[in-house]
């Protein structure tokens, strides 16, 4: 096998603290990115773009956001969809009310609004932890959606309470084909994933993990729990907000507040747990799993030719059973499974 790090010595600390210290990994990622940016747009079908790739990327981004909060900073949250909703509705209103605002700027502003909401609802985390906090973040979920339905201004007084995302135009180029929307989303997701990785490997990231692993000790060392936690909430909500805006603009096109329901929050939570809590790669793997598995199951059930109602229920059961199965095989998620596979590869052909 070629997966060996032997012979690769790091002579500078800079080289050692690279995102991917092993050369084979770097080559692998570069190939993957080249494939995603250059080859996929040429070969993928519109179905793949608009029903699989785009939602996968958007969910991965949201999962990344949640992973920052839950995986790295240790604050369990069930309010992800609410932050996404804030991002989407804020972006909508910025574009609507600020004439000529660039779409990307609106997305960023949307993200910032979500971050602000995140900070407000993150305040209780200073006292509450664990499942108590999780249940309390449900307050965010319900309250935000309630506000969006109640305050008609947010939906520009549309009678149905549904917003229609404006066209995405950047420098006169309008992103209206599935492929162009995919590329835009991919670009944003890649940039934000790199930023996240950078944060994780520098002092902010360490402060989050310290607070997660043992907040009392973190305090003694000089991290301020309040700032650290609120920053985590802000950054995480920012990511979710941008994901929410993309969900509205690059994916659905029109959204009602209920599209950002508790269900969505849970789905994103599933993604990080299945993918790997506290792992950036895990966010992607988890999103892929949760997006793809039901589709496969659905296709598979059809191929079997079962009566449809039986098929639908079996799908649900198999989905549940697979989640349990994966957790039993590897409680730390797909990312860990991948890592173990790599470690085995490194030792190959010896078992350990």
């Amino acid at each position, binding site marked *: 096998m070629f997966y060996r790090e032997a012979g690769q010595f790091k002579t500078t600390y800079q080289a050692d603290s690279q995102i991917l210290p092993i050369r084979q990994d770097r080559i692998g990622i570069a190939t993957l990115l080249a494939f995603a940016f250059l080859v996929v747009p040429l070969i993928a079908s519109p179905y793949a773009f608009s029903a699989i790739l785009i939602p996968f990327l958007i969910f991965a981004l949201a999962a990344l956001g949640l992973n920052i909060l839950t995986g790295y900073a240790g604050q369990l949250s069930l309010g992800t969809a609410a932050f996404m909703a804030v991002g989407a509705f804020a972006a909508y209103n910025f574009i609507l009310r600020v004439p000529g605002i660039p779409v990307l700027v609106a997305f960023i502003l949307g993200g910032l609004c979500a971050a602000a909401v995140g900070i407000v609802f993150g305040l209780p985390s200073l006292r509450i932890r664990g499942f108590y906090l999780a249940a*309390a973040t449900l307050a965010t979920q319900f309250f935000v959606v309630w506000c969006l339905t109640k305050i008609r201004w947010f939906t520009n007084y549309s009678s149905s309470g549904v917003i229609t995302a404006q066209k995405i135009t950047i420098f006169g180029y309008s992103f209206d084909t599935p492929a162009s929307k995919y590329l835009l989303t991919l670009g944003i997701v890649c940039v934000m994933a790199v930023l996240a990785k950078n944060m994780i490997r520098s002092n902010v990231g360490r402060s989050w993990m310290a607070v997660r692993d043992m907040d009392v000790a973190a305090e003694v060392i000089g991290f301020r729990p309040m700032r650290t936690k609120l920053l985590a909430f802000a950054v995480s909500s920012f990511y979710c907000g941008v994901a929410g805006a993309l969900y509205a603009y690059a994916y659905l096109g029109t959204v009602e507040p209920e599209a950002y329901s508790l269900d969505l929050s849970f789905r994103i939570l599933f993604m990080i747990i299945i993918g790997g809590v506290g792992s950036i790669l895990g966010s992607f793997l988890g999103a892929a799993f949760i997006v793809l598995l039901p589709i496969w199951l659905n296709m598979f059930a059809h191929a079997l030719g079962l009566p449809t109602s039986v098929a639908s229920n079996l799908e649900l059961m198999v989905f549940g059973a697979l989640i349990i199965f994966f957790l039993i095989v590897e*409680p730390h998620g797909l990312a860990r499974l991948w890592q173990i596979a790599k470690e085995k590869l490194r030792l190959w052909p010896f078992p350990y």
Partner: protein
Amino acid sequence: MNISFFFEVLIGGLLAGVMYALVALGFVLIYKASGVFNFAQGAMVFFAALTCVGISTKFNVSLWIAIPLTMAVMVLLGLATERIVLRPLVNQPEITLFMATIGLTFFIEGLAQLMWGSQVHQLDIGIEDVPIQSLLDNFNISISQFDVTAAVICAALVTGLALFFSKTKIGRALRAVADDHQAALAVGIPLQQIWGIVWAVAGFVALVAGLLWGARNGVQFALTFVALKALPVLILGGFTSVPGAIVGGLIIGASEKLAEVYIGPMVGGGIEGWFPYVLALLFLLVRPEGLFGERIIRRI
């Protein structure tokens, strides 16, 4: 607003709170025993009610035969869950176990509908859901006799469970398990057995909740949503306390109804969805472990 209306709302809220507490109890049991937040509790309520109705309609037997049969099914479900889901996950982080119960939720929901179909059913357990006439006549207060019966059943259940946990050594063992799986194993607490018992009891509680809620709202998928009503009760009362579930239920029920009636109209109404959560949150800011929850020990 007159005073009798106020009382009507208050009492209605308290009784509704009892119904929430019934569901919350199931959560408490399992959390106490394993530190697992059992996301599948709502699905279990649905499963129990649907199985009960399904048995009685499909095999055309009376409800009083179907109920014990369902109970047997619920016990089996509990034991199977322990064996297949929890046992391999001993000593794993809470969030993993939590996720496993989410998987379980999907499974149970699919299973229930696969077995009994997705139709809605009526469930008549023989208690009429009508106002108590004498109260209506004398005080013009409308209180359903169904709710009162449910409250009595719930009180009996809570007392029973509270005694079970405080008076038997299993109760102590449960708390030990929740603290540290590994150490509990080391002192010889049979984790499997305990979990089996607790899941079976939780199945029983789910059955009671399913019957009462099913009789109230009909047996349909939406029964799984009652879990959402139970969550604020749970955080307010404390995840680990049986009496906490009741007290939390009463507080949440009463305040949610009063808020909807007196504050709701000012802000456009429909606040019952989030109000209990915000209320519970405010309580938590004062007591981060809920009213009766065990204090979280943070020491270095």
